[in-house]
């Protein structure tokens, strides 16, 4: 099982059309099995394209030109998978209303729909769906119509409908854009609980979720890999990312956490991997 959930990307490039600029340009990184990586970068950096490439959606639905290779769980793809790899690889889309099937009457049935599709035994379907709703803190939405949910509720249901399948590789495209504070904390805890059993990659426009749960950080800009490394190294070099990310708030925090401080400050610094 060693390396079952590892993602190794080698010299991966992609153009949507022959004449367009590279959406991905010579990306090379390896995310070890069971760890979590945040993908950061400005709009148009290639964050979503990369997730689509790894999920198989890009290979299945785009006629663009790719080179390089991707190895997922020991299987090599050139340049990336040609078919959607669900349920081995699960992708949560940036716009949750696209993810919701619209075929089921209630949120609970919507979540069960995922498990029915992967052929889970009937008696396990309901308990599996209820478990993930509990874990995501949205059991109170179980009887609601998916179409009647608010934006933030729908985002949480869309994520639950993916996570319920417990894919070994989980790809989340901007999972917290509409979610409230407590919901973000619950999602952070859920991601942490999925680590070890799954490898998690997510894109993020802020830094809060990334610095809370990610072990690795990948920074992209205009399709190029500006940085890939452990979170600690990223935090030590925050200043070099201020051009492309909003790092200034975190620069002052991490600098102060590096100084001798109270026990509580030291605990935070350790949790963030600064010390």
């Amino acid at each position, binding site marked *: 099982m060693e390396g079952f959930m590892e993602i190794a990307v080698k010299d991966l490039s992609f153009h949507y059309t022959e004449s367009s600029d590279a959406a991905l340009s010579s990306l090379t990184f390896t995310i070890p099995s069971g760890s979590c990586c945040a993908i950061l*970068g*400005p*709009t*148009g950096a290639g964050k*979503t394209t990369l997730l689509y490439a790894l999920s198989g959606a890009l290979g299945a639905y785009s006629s663009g030109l790719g080179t390089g290779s991707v190895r997922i769980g020991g299987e090599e793809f050139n340049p990336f998978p040609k078919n959607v790899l669900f349920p081995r690889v699960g992708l949560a889309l*940036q*716009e949750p*209303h696209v993810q919701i099937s619209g075929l089921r009457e209630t949120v609970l049935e919507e979540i069960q729909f995922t498990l029915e599709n992967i052929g889970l035994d009937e008696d396990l379907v309901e308990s599996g769906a209820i478990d993930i709703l509990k874990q995501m803190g949205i059991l109170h*939405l179980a009887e609601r119509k998916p179409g*009647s*949910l*608010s*934006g*933030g*509720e729908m*985002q*949480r249901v869309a994520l639950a409908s993916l996570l319920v399948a417990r894919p070994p590789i989980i790809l989340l495209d*901007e999972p917290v*854009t*509409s*979610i*409230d*504070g*407590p*919901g*973000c*904390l619950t999602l952070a805890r859920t991601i942490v609980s999925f680590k070890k059993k799954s490898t998690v990659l997510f894109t993020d*426009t*802020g*830094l*809060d979720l990334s*610095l*809370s749960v990610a072990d690795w950080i990948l920074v992209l800009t205009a399709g190029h890999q500006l940085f890939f490394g452990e979170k600690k190294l990223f935090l030590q070099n925050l200043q070099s990312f201020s051009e*492309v*990310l*909003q790092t200034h*708030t*975190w620069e*002052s*925090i991490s600098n*102060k*956490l590096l100084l001798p*401080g109270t026990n*509580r*400050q030291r605990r*935070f610094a350790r949790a963030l991997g600064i010390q």
Partner: protein
Amino acid sequence: MTITLDKVSFSYSPGIPVLRDISFTLREGELILIVGRNGAGKSTLLKLLNGILKPTSGEISVAGLRTAVTPTSELAKHICVTFQNPSDQIFASTVREEIEFGSKNIGRANAEAIVENTVQLFGLSRLTNKHPYDLLPAQRKLLTIASAVAMETAALAFDEPTAGLSKDERLTVARAFKSLLAKRHTIVIVSHDLQFFLPLCNRVFVISGGEVKHESGPGEFLGKAVVLRQWGVKFPLSYRLQKLVG
């Protein structure tokens, strides 16, 4: 121009109130931030402001017009509401037409000049001839904000306007909002992005269980982290850490 809510309640289904007995007045030139848990009724409140939804009881008045009896086309001249999901409101076939539509539709005399200024302000010059659906989601979001700004209504309301935007786009939005406030427009924001909006806003309202549980200026709001937690308000990690390290 003021917006007044007087004991406003609203239910989608009879007997299940989403908003209860909400009263407040929004003054000219201020930015109001509305926060609360997912499903608290924040987006519903915005839909009541421009008359898409009518109060089940109570009264809303926008620029002296009662929303319950004023056609939405008339209200649109005074207040523009931008939804959370850009796809819900984009329908023109180019970026320029999308920005022009609202402004021309409500009969702005100098629509051409307003549109040109807005295109510049939002840095959309390179994209004006593109189809909105060929834009990246964040660019599409920026387009919906630009289209609202180009209407130059006295009041503007935005549902999660910074969701999914990266650094440069956030700076653009901040610049646009500051320019609107300088021109005495009233802005209503529903957002979880406290980091972005607390420095910009005049007052914060916390909605929970369909009621306004807290109303204060941003300074007082920041000092009440522990009380606010019960209503689903959680300050960003960076805010909490900043307080910890001083």
